[in-house]
């Protein structure tokens, strides 16, 4: 086996044979799943607050009714949203509605339940509260009710005194079991806002039922585009390339930076352990640099394959239709080749640069002089990539796509909007030309840095490139 492959194999094994690597590798999809599941879990595990409504005085009459109507409207809205989500799931999975419902039931009804679940329920006013005459008496009863240690089902979480202020507008005093819980306060505010709106409209001669109906109205807005597959209405499938482009840009950014950082640390470790000098007596600087870049590239590919495998399996199991669409966009649409080309070019540019910096450093602190500004520059494409997705032909996006250091992140995001061929070829040529230039520069700097005791600075780095090591 030649030296380059030997070094690459050792580099790969040094990370891939550790438990920590596989744990951190699996952590990403695990957290991605958790990231999606946690809001649902939070929603479904959140207790429904039991609320008592008390109208204070004759002026407040009818306010409780308005709150009840608001609650009913909220329930209807949530049910509609859950139905929409279910419909989307049917479309994405390609399964019949019954099968989706069945799967949801088996899974504990997660998403639908989370979306349709209300946060507030109204309960009967306890007799002792109704019997209390004065405001002070009522408040004493409320304090007792809200501090009582009873079963969860019998527990009262909030007592709301509905009233009207001096201007005759709806107002409320919300008593809550927990001072930090503002759920009921928010709900009552919305409900009274709605009641006030209705009152204003009614006083202007508009019937209350008309107001309710108006509030319930949800416009059916559909997006059409000649670029959609049907030539008309834009479907989720039409939006998929954009989502894939954005995901590719973020994934590339994260993989390239992670790979390059692994390389930086690896070279720094070898420099501080004085292994680089031994390696240099056995292999050329080019062989060492190539071997290390290749080894970490294999590591990055492993990460990508494992993530892709887990993601594909998850999609095929949960949303087979969407999985098929993604596969078709990546393979038949050719997006995978964009991804591969930009991954190779981007990784090469950054990996060799980071390795060359590592050759001058023994600790991460040594590397900060150069790494700080580089990382700041690297944040720019992440900001611009979102603009690239919505308006891929914006002048800023077009110009920045031509900057070779940003090309690997911006062009995959622009790919779904079919940028002109000269831009694709030109930016790619620029990126690979820069990658080759970086390999040449980094090779010289690496050779010089590996045997140097000089502290890293822009000046010493530039001097090493000029001197060329040998």
């Amino acid at each position, binding site marked *: 086996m030649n030296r380059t492959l030997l070094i690459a194999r050792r580099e790969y094994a040094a990370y891939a044979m550790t438990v920590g690597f596989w744990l951190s590798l699996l952590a990403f999809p695990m957290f991605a799943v958790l990231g999606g599941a946690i809001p649902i879990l939070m929603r479904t595990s959140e207790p429904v607050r039991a609320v008592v409504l008390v109208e204070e005085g004759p002026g407040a009459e009818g306010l409780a009714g308005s709150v009840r109507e608001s609650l009913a409207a909220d329930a209807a809205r949530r049910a509609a949203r859950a139905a929409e989500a279910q419909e989307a799931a049917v479309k994405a999975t390609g399964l019949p509605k019954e099968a989706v419902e069945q799967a949801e039931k088996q899974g504990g009804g997660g998403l639908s339940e989370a979306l349709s679940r209300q946060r507030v329920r109204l309960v009967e006013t306890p007799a002792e509260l109704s019997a209390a005459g004065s405001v002070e008496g009522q408040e004493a009863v409320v304090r007792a009710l809200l501090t009582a240690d009873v079963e969860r089902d019998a527990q009262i979480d909030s007592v709301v005194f509905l009233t009207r202020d001096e201007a005759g507008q709806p107002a409320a005093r919300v008593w809550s079991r927990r001072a930090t819980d503002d759920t009921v306060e928010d709900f009552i505010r919305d409900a009274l806002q709605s009641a006030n709106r209705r009152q204003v409209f009614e006083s202007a001669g508009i019937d209350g039922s008309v107001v309710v109906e108006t509030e319930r109205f949800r416009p059916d807005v559909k997006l059409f585009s000649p670029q959609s597959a049907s030539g008309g209405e834009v479907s989720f499938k039409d939006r998929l390339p954009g989502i894939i482009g954005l995901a590719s840009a973020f994934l590339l950014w994260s993989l390239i930076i992670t790979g390059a950082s692994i390389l930086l640390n690896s070279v720094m470790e070898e420099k501080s352990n004085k292994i680089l000098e031994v390696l240099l007596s056995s292999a050329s600087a080019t062989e060492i640099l190539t071997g290390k870049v290749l080894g970490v590239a294999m590591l990055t590919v492993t990460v990508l394959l494992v993530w892709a495998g887990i993601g594909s399996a998850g999609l095929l199991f949960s949303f087979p239709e969407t999985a098929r669409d993604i596969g078709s966009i990546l393979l038949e649409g050719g997006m995978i080749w964009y991804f591969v080309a930009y991954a190779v070019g981007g990784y090469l540019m950054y990996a060799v640069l980071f390795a060359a910096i590592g050759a001058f450093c023994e600790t991460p602190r040594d590397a900060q002089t150069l790494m700080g500004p580089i990382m700041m520059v690297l944040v720019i494409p992440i900001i611009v990539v979102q603009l690239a997705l919505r308006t891929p032909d914006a002048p800023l996006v077009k110009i920045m796509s031509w900057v070779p250091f940003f090309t690997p992140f911006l062009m995959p995001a622009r790919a779904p909007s079919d940028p002109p061929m000269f831009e694709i070829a030109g930016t790619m040529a620029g990126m690979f030309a820069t990658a080759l230039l970086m390999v040449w520069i980094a090779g010289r700097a690496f050779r010089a840095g590996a045997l140097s005791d*000089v502290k890293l600075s822009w000046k010493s780095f530039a001097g090493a490139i000029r001197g060329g090591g*040998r």
Partner: protein
Amino acid sequence: MDAALSLTDISKRYGAFQAVKDLSFSVPKGSICGFLGPNGAGKTSTLRMILGLQPQTSGSLSILGAGDGRSVRDRIGFLPEERGLYKKMTPVDAIAFFGALKGLPTGEGRKRARVMLKQQGLEHAQTKKMKELSKGMAQKVQLIASVVHKPEFVILDEPFSGLDPVNQQGLEEMIRGLAADGATVLFSTHVMQHAERLCDKVVLLARGQKAFEGTVDEAKATTRRFLELEGEIAVAAAKALPGVVSVETVRSDGPVHVLKAELAPGGRGQEALKAAFLNGLDVRRFELREPTLHDAFIGLTGDDPDQDQTVRRENLEAAR
């Protein structure tokens, strides 16, 4: 004897700093050559030029018949001054890896590693990780890693530094073993005792320039030898002894003097002593002081090899 290595007017300059100047010497095949000098004298720079890790500013060299160490790197073994191996590797894996870089098949490398570790009493350490080994053990492993491919030329940069006396002795035996197997060994050190015991040839370096090249005995012969005499002896009587060049009084206690008689180059101390007894001089104590390589180094260069040339070394590191 053919030279495995020869340097002709090699110089190395880092910017304005002259690290090595017009250095010429040769190392015969199969010999052990000591490359001696204080820290900062330019030894590591020279070794790096020999290995092809750094280019010389001027001059030429030939190693194993090649003009550049890089083209024969598989036939060379190298132990750098500052040692390091992959901490998470086992000794066997580390040795096999570095052997493989020199063209030794991995399987053969692992086999040889086990044998060589056993020879060095490190059989129990085969499956441990490098980070679990003591410094002496790790140094032995690194030396094995640098010679596992059976190189024709072995370059060791300060191989004894940081080792306790027992491990130093073990290392000396390893170096003798390498030479016995036919390898040429060039090692740098600033500790003269090792060179004195091991070397067929020494090259003394001071401030980047060669101060001496030859055998240990030849080096010693360049410096003065003394015969110390104690008793009621007159300076003139001592001066009249054969082979004695000059005499100085070290100290006196009444009529009893301690005299230091310098012997002429090639003068034999035994003859001077024999003449002293035959002449009836009152010799109560005598000591023939043979020079050491350390003395020879000081005599030849004016530097003490045990003292760092700190300023020069710092300048050298900054210039690199």
